[in-house]
């Protein structure tokens, strides 16, 4: 059974200027333990697709199945963890209490909550900051708290919507390496929305290249860089070959302007 199966997904939004087709006939399968990135220019519907899988929005037509269930049932069963572009921490809660939030909402008792939170704080390397409050942390540290929170209930599927989008280059690369390590440790499937080609290539087993207006899947590129992805990978030829393949898929035919709005980070 696959982690996610999207079949013929169409999503339209009614706006002031008329009906917008955010996604048009999108089909995608993500296997268990697989890391898949969604990449494309603004307005290609990659975040929309993620929100449909998370059941934060509902498909107009088509279907989304998560672990063989409807997206809604998967959300109610807490089958996935999610992290957004902004950390979305509650400013009046400490790092520990923020990570405990999903556990607390689902009735996990105090000692078990604290044990799990301290495990996760170690996992994301924030040991000294367990009792700090979000305003005392840098953007990168807040994002690590958000990732720890998304892992709190040991989900087999992680949904990440540009979680490193607001970070500086150095923090971003360090967070990517940590995410690779965390995914290897947890064995979760990941769907990762990004604007950045190198980020998508570095992290993913497969990169889904999307095009805008209406949002469609243009190409799916398999990046077979192996499991042992260290910092040195970023300088290897195989890495650059994959970056080039993704870039060409994004830009389509020469002279096309589909790739505009993307940065080369």
């Amino acid at each position, binding site marked *: 059974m696959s982690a996610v199966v999207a079949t013929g997904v169409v999503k339209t939004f009614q706006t002031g200027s008329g009906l917008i087709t955010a996604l048009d006939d999108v089909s995608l399968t993500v296997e268990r333990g697989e890391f898949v990135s969604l990449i494309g220019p603004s307005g290609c519907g990659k975040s929309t697709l993620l929100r449909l899988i998370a059941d934060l929005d509902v498909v107009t037509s088509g279907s989304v199945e998560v672990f063989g269930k409807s997206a809604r049932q998967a959300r109610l069963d807490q089958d996935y963890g*999610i992290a957004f572009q902004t950390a979305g921490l*509650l400013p009046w809660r400490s790092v520990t209490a923020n990570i405990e939030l999903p556990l*607390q909402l689902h009735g996990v008792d105090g000692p078990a909550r604290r044990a799990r939170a301290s495990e996760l704080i170690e996992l994301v390397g924030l040991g000294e900051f367990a009792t700090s409050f979000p305003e005392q942390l840098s953007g990168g540290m807040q994002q690590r708290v958000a990732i720890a929170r998304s892992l709190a209930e040991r989900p087999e599927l992680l949904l990440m919507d540009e979680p490193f989008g607001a970070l500086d280059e150095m923090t971003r690369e360090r967070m990517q390496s940590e995410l690779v390590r965390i995914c290897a440790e947890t064995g979760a499937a990941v769907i990762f929305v990004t604007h950045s080609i190198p980020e998508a290539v570095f992290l993913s087993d497969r990169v889904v290249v999307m095009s805008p207006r209406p949002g469609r899947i243009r190409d799916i590129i398999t990046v077979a860089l192996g499991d042992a992805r260290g910092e040195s990978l970023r300088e290897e030829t195989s890495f650059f070959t994959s970056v080039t393949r993704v870039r060409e898929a994004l830009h389509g035919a020469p002279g096309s302007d589909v790739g505009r709005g993307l940065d080369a980070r």
Partner: protein
Amino acid sequence: MNSTLRLRVVPPIALGVVALVAWQVLVVAADIQPYLLPAPSAIAAQLIVIAPALWSAMLATGLNALVGLVAGTVLAIVLAITASRIRFIDQLLAPIIAAIAVVPIVALAPVLTNMFGATSETPRRVIVTIVVFVPVFVNTLRGLRQVQPVQRDLLRSYAASRWQLTTTVTLPGALPYIFTGLNIASSLAVISAIVSEYFGGLQNGLGSRITSAAANSAYPRAWAYVFGAIILGLVFYSATLALGRLASRRR
């Protein structure tokens, strides 16, 4: 006492003392009559004489203010939560809130005193409740609308109930706003409790004592009750301020 605290506390006290001395000197030197302005020494002497009566008047007015403050605050918070959840209720309440906001208590007090009878504390408490309601409601509603979309999405992804969203995200986020409203309301509560006594009814509170002392030309005594009113207002204001600090630390 450390030096920063000394810098914050000493200057206002010194200013107060200087003002009192200047007041005393002015009254004595210019031979100002007590019905115009009594000397601080005369007011202080009256404070000692009327101390037991002042205390019971402060208690009576204070209790009315407190009952009204609690009732108005609870009502305002409950209705604000309802309005923030249900759009229809929000639209229903908006014009009524605007109407309540402009009701002059001096107009309402005589009417309510007649309605409930001259031996009842109820009209005064109702007036305080109405006066307190508006700033608490308006600020609470604003606070409840501060939830960020990302926090709403997050709680939805956790399949949290609306009640869980309210208790873990919406209300804690609204707390600073609620206490802003409460700080305004606490001073208004004491003022309106005193003013509501100016229109007849029981003669047990600060407002009625001030009017009767002034009517009997006992000006230093009237001022002594005014002093009690200031103290009562400060107690209410500092209490809500302290409560707000405590709540923001504990949430």
